[in-house]
């Protein structure tokens, strides 16, 4: 697997951290691209991925439920419950293609996404 941290990423200021619900997610628009951001308060971690679910091409992932599979953080699409790892982007219950995941950092109360 490619290590996304080695690529030089461009950080985008997305949203105030408190605007993302605890243990939940929101969709944001960055340069016309729909991105889902998730706040895993239980674990103190943040994740981001494409908002598009590859299953039926629905712009939906931000509206799904977050959680984990054996400790691996994941998002379950609200449409047909396909789950994707927020670490690798791999589909966890099917052979669907991977989704894009993006690095996230919090600086001065703001969420930044690396594209």
């Amino acid at each position, binding site marked *: 697997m490619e290590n996304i941290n080695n690529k030089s990423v461009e950080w985008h200021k997305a949203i105030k951290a408190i605007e993302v*619900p605890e243990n939940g997610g929101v969709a944001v628009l960055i340069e016309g691209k729909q991105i889902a951001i998730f706040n895993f308060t239980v674990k103190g971690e943040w994740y981001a991925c494409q908002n598009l679910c590859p299953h039926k091409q629905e*712009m939906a992932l931000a509206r799904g439920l977050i*959680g984990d599979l054996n400790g691996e953080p994941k998002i379950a699409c609200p449409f047909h419950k396909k789950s994707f790892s927020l670490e690798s982007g791999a589909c966890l219950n099917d052979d669907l*293609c991977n989704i894009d995941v993006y690095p996230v950092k919090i600086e001065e109360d703001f969420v930044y996404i690396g594209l």
Partner: protein
Amino acid sequence: MKKKLIVVGNGMTAVKFCQKMVEAGLLNQFDLMVIGEEPHYAYDRVHLTDYYTGTDVLDLHLVPIQWYKDNQIEVITHTKVTLIDKHNLTVELEDKSIFKYDTLVLATGSAAFVPPIEGKDKDGVFVYRTIYDLSLIKEYVKGAKKGVVIGGGLLGLEAAKAIMDDGIESTIIERNPWLMGRQLDKQGASFLHKKLGEQGLNIITDTNIARVLGDDKVTGIEFIDGTSIETDIIVISSGIKARDELAIKAGLEVGKFGGILVDEGMQTTYPGIYAIGECALAAGMTWGLVAPCYEMAEVLVERLKGEDRSFLGTDMSTKLKLIGSEVASFGDALGSTPGAIPLVLENRFTQVYKRINISEDGKYLLGGILVGDASDYNTLLQIYKNKIVLPANPESLLSTQSQGGGFSLSVLDLADDAVICSCEGVTKGKICNAIENDGVTTVAGLKKCTKAGTGCGGCVPMVDDLLTAVLKKQGKDVKKVVCEHFAYSRQELFDIVKLEEIKTYPDLLAKKGHGMGCEICKPLVASLLASIWNEPIVKHQQIQDTNDKFLGNIQRGGTYSIVPRIAGGEITPQKLEVIGRIGKKYDLYCKITGGQRIDLFGARVDQLPEIWEELIDEGFESGHAYGKSLRTVKSCVGSTWCRFGLHDSVSFAIQIENRYKGLRSPHKLKGGVSGCVRECAEAKGKDFGIIATDKGWNLYVSGNGGSNPVHAVLLASDIDSDTCIKYLDRFLMFYIKTAAPLTRTSKWLAGLEGGIEYLKDVVINDCLGMAEQFEKEMQFQVDTYKCEWKEVVNNPELRAKFKAFANSDQTDSSIKFVPIRDQKMPTPC
């Protein structure tokens, strides 16, 4: 140097062969190349009909395209192999490219057999074998009203059901005296015939077709007796023939009725060339089901590995996929073994036919037929396959297990080499090993690790039984836990939440669970919190399923639907106008639902609060169409207007709907009230149904529509309205407290020990001493009811969550509509 192995055909057998090669580690000895003539990568032909009903081709792929790449298997699609040069060890493709091989495997499958009927080449005549065939049918059917399927076998019935479900008036034509002649006897077929007939399928048997009528296009079919019927489309499903044309051209020996002749090790009459799957003539016949094909693939891989495995034929038992009636046949279904004794159960009332054939000495089960109820298929199949000695009263095998009677066979009694999943050839031993040694504890885990249950899925109940039995034997607690995050059943969590006064999910997770939760436990806990504390579910937005999160059902394209409550289906003309006005203003698609109310579709998430605000201002409230909660209580017009009405069913329906509105439960709840036995409200198809009698009401419970319809059963008769409500309170609370997640009342009652008699004892005789508490708890629910939408509309903080993007006021530009009959719908993908 690695040897080159070419597989001709990329169908189900070919891909199974590749998988087994990978598993066997043979890819370091062979370079694998697969050449297939279809444009698609290998897909699940067994579930081809799913493609017709809307499943994506991608979802039917047997392995993802990436899998071939990951394993360095070269694949050529959309190109036919036209020639084998067996002396120079090459194959030539239709694009004239030539490849050299050391080993050649033919997995060319079969083609639909088309009898030489006059006029068979007209437009509108199709076969049913590939995705391409089905895409043609799907397109052509749009312009058709009537359809004919020629051939009343397994496949023909499947095809006929598919086009019938598409709204086409369908007829099956079978040359033989009865349907499914290979699997069923005359009696069994007559049961099936009747059942399918009731569902609207026309069936003509014992007839011969003279020709297809029409100029260029099909318009009908004429029989040899001169009669004819009209049709716009014909699907031929008269059997299959092995695709042996390539083998014939190459001079390999084939059978008199087709099929490439192979020996026990799958080798053709020419060394180095093998044939597997439906194209092969193996152990004296060709094989038209996927299980034997897979076994051939496995045998060949073993042989290539140098092992001595043989294909000697296999069992052809089948349980039919959904065709409108359960049908299964196994072993010697027709009882042709000398001395076989048939035992038959015919129940014209429940429309169940069962036949088992017992060996002459009464010791063994030889085979059998099940029509109308195939729930015992797996057990009977295991008894037959494993030659289990029968009890002294073998007729007990005929009574249904699920009804308590019958001969019960513990899965643990089976031999280790008993095959549980025939599609994948997975034995009991292999499954037990996964549970005992690899620590697998779920059916999903077993599917992943052993592949059992991933084919037709028929064995899944047995796999589940086996899992439970093995875990139990190991002394492990086998209670059904919610998911990996909580080691409790729903009922236990219910008690914990209540006794420990837990009010939030994070609190429960911290105290009683582990990890970060998931899409299974979160909505479940949300439902428990709502059932127990009756707080607005929006308070727990982050653990709700999307429908509950946004208080609307999510639609294709990502918009939501709006269903205001219209209790009992009664609505004033003024209120109708309001809905009309609001629908028009926001350009919403408008439809009367099956639940006697009105659904407005196509609202963007940011529009929801605004629209609801207007509706609430006009006196509407949430209809909870999105929740696992009370939906509707349907009513018939009743005694106020109807000349047969005994009581005022509308008033009673409204009263009940308003009483239980907002009540959260393990699954959705529906009710109905009919004013007399004519039952125009279809109350017996509901979770609770009330029907007027001349003395009061009859209360029925645990009915269900949906995919497994069940009629509600009588709980109490001739009761007055107050008693009826009292019993309903008790019944509903008992259900809410004890049902497993996502279990409708019908499934819950079916699994309730003691069944309806016990339920009567709890509800009417108060055998648990809980009745008063149930009533109190229900009253608390009723008293604390609030319209969820009102809460949101009036709360700016909650309202702010209804937007497409957290960092922008733009709306989602990916949402697009197209017109349909003066309204709109989401753009088809």
